[in-house]
């Protein structure tokens, strides 16, 4: 749940409860005040009747006005208490029963006790109360509406810097050197957040840089002894007085150093692609390049009796020639290496994608095939080829996909992400 939603919910719930309570109190108080006023009017009327009786020693005529009725009744038996009560009375003009307020009192005329009922219409006060209630409800709704609108627009705008910082953090990549930019805001909290995020990013980047330069230096430093080993092996070989057994040992050492230097170059290459240090962007005729690769690999194809089928349409893409070469090399050698004797390789190239599919043993390849140093048990490679391939694709916004279809291993590079 979003912070603003949560806040809204609490805010609106409290507002509704408070407004309802206020409405009730309002209603009760106004109702009370109006009844008081009616009662006072009734008491005034009673007073007038009493004065009339004192002066003329007889009852005034029972009159019926629009909003006021007076009725007399001789009392037999118990004298009733003086009291105010709610009644309904018949309004002759409107010809309907209307709510009213009555005062029942007793007057003495010439020693005779007479019950007097004075009734006043309550319609007006009821109307007043209703209007007040409606206004209250109206204001409540208006208030709720404005709260919603404020939340919707003002809060959203207030939170915008936060979301913008968040988005930039999500898009942050340690390998890219761009800063998490400031979204201008007058709100201290967001400014502070921005500052902290930038400080953190800077630190991460610094650490990464150090680590990278360490790897870089370590790699270069390792290259020299490796070059020495290699050259010494070459020199040793020229002395030519070996037994077959020694020869086999030498061959093993050659293989190991060869692997080591290739591993090394692959790691350096990965680091370079990640850091986007290979700028030479140019237009590549992919079709020609694929055909050249087919020729280049021809001997290797023949060796395993593989059939290469190409279905290529001319496609131009923009990338480094060097990396394009590596990309195709890796895909090709992958298709070769994981093939079976007498198998096939199909290559399809069109505007959308490059697909290389090869026959091979059915293995349940993990989804991790693009990870570094992930390789199948019988693989002779180092497990870096596909990681490099993936990195190259990432660099140029291509998408690479792997699937197993009817015993074929299919790699597809989609040029448009």
């Amino acid at each position: 749940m979003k912070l603003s939603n949560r806040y809204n919910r609490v805010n609106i719930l409290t507002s509704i409860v408070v407004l309802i309570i206020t409405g009730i109190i309002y209603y009760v108080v106004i109702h009370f005040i109006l009844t008081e006023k009616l009662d006072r009017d009734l008491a005034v009327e009673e007073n007038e009747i009493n004065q009339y009786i004192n002066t003329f020693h007889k009852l005034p005529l029972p009159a019926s006005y629009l909003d006021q009725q007076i009725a007399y009744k001789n009392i037999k038996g118990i004298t009733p208490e003086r009291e105010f009560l709610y009644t309904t009375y018949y309004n002759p003009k409107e010809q309907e029963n209307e709510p009213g307020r009555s005062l029942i009192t007793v007057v003495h005329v010439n020693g005779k006790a007479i019950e007097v009922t004075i009734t006043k219409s309550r319609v007006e006060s009821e109307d007043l109360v209703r209007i007040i209630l409606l206004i209250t409800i109206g204001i409540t709704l208006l208030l709720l509406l404005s709260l919603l609108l404020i939340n919707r627009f003002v809060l959203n705008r207030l939170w915008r810097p936060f979301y913008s910082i968040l988005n930039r953090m999500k898009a942050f990549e340690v390998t890219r050197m761009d800063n998490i930019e400031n979204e201008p805001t007058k709100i201290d909290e967001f400014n502070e957040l921005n500052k902290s995020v930038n400080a953190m990013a800077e630190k991460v980047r610094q650490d990464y840089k150090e680590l990278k330069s360490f790897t870089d230096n370590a790699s270069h430093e390792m290259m020299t002894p490796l070059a020495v080993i290699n050259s010494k092996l070459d020199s040793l070989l020229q002395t030519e007085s070996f037994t077959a057994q020694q020869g086999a040992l030498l061959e093993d050492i050659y293989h190991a150093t060869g692997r080591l230097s290739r591993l090394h170059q692959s790691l350096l290459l990965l680091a370079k692609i990640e850091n986007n240090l290979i700028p030479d962007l140019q237009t590549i005729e992919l079709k020609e390049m694929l055909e050249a690769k087919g020729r280049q690999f021809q001997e290797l194809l023949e060796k395993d009796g593989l059939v290469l089928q190409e279905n290529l349409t001319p496609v131009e893409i923009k990338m480094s020639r060097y990396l394009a070469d590596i990309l195709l090399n890796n895909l090709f050698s992958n298709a070769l290496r994981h093939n079976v004797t007498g198998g096939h390789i199909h290559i399809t190239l069109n505007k959308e994608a490059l697909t290389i599919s090869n026959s091979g043993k059915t293995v349940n390849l993990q989804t991790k095939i693009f990870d570094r140093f992930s390789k199948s048990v019988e693989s002779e490679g180092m497990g870096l080829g596909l990681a490099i391939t993936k990195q190259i694709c990432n660099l140029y916004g291509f998408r690479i996909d792997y699937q197993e279809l009817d015993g074929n291993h299919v790699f597809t590079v989609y040029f448009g992400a």
Partner: protein
Amino acid sequence: MKILVIEDEPALLESILAYFTGEGNICEHAADFASANEKISLYNYDCILLDLGLPGGEGLELLTKLKQLKKRDGVLIISARHSLDDKLAGLDLGADDYLVKPFHLSELKARVTAIIRRKNFDGNNVIVFNEITVDVSAMKVTVKGNLISLTKKEFDLLVYFLSNRNKVVTKNAMAEHLWGDEMDLSDDFDFIYTHVKNLRKKLLEAGAADYLRSVYGIGYKFGDI
């Protein structure tokens, strides 16, 4: 040919010198920027092997210096830095080739001889070895005057062998030379055998002596019997 090796790693320098010396080659060396600078100012070389990271200065500056002196020495950069920028900068400054450490000595030799061949015989790029004549620019091979037809790979292989006469060349180095070292090949280089076998057969059929020998299963040696 006269070669200057500028390399600060003594062990590597020694190996290179050992590999290149002989067959009428004169090899000199320099282990730091100052002595290298002095040598290139004073003498002319057919080819200079230049390491980029030198004590006392940047190897690329020596290239600039050569250019200023208007020298026509061939330059091969050998560097531990596998950086495209360096490579392009080096080639821009007039280097003829660029080789990344670690390398096979046979590859180094092949590249150096190629540079020297290009420099010395402008256009007329021919290697002669006893009865075998190889016209590198025309890609023609004749044995005792008879033209023989070789595939591209066989031709490259022959040139490679001729550049490394009387040296043992490993299958590994041959594979990298013919198919490029970016290929991430398997460690099984036995497929080289087919090409060597075919080349040998064609040379023998044309009447050449059997110069090729297999050595301990690691590689081959092409040279005087």
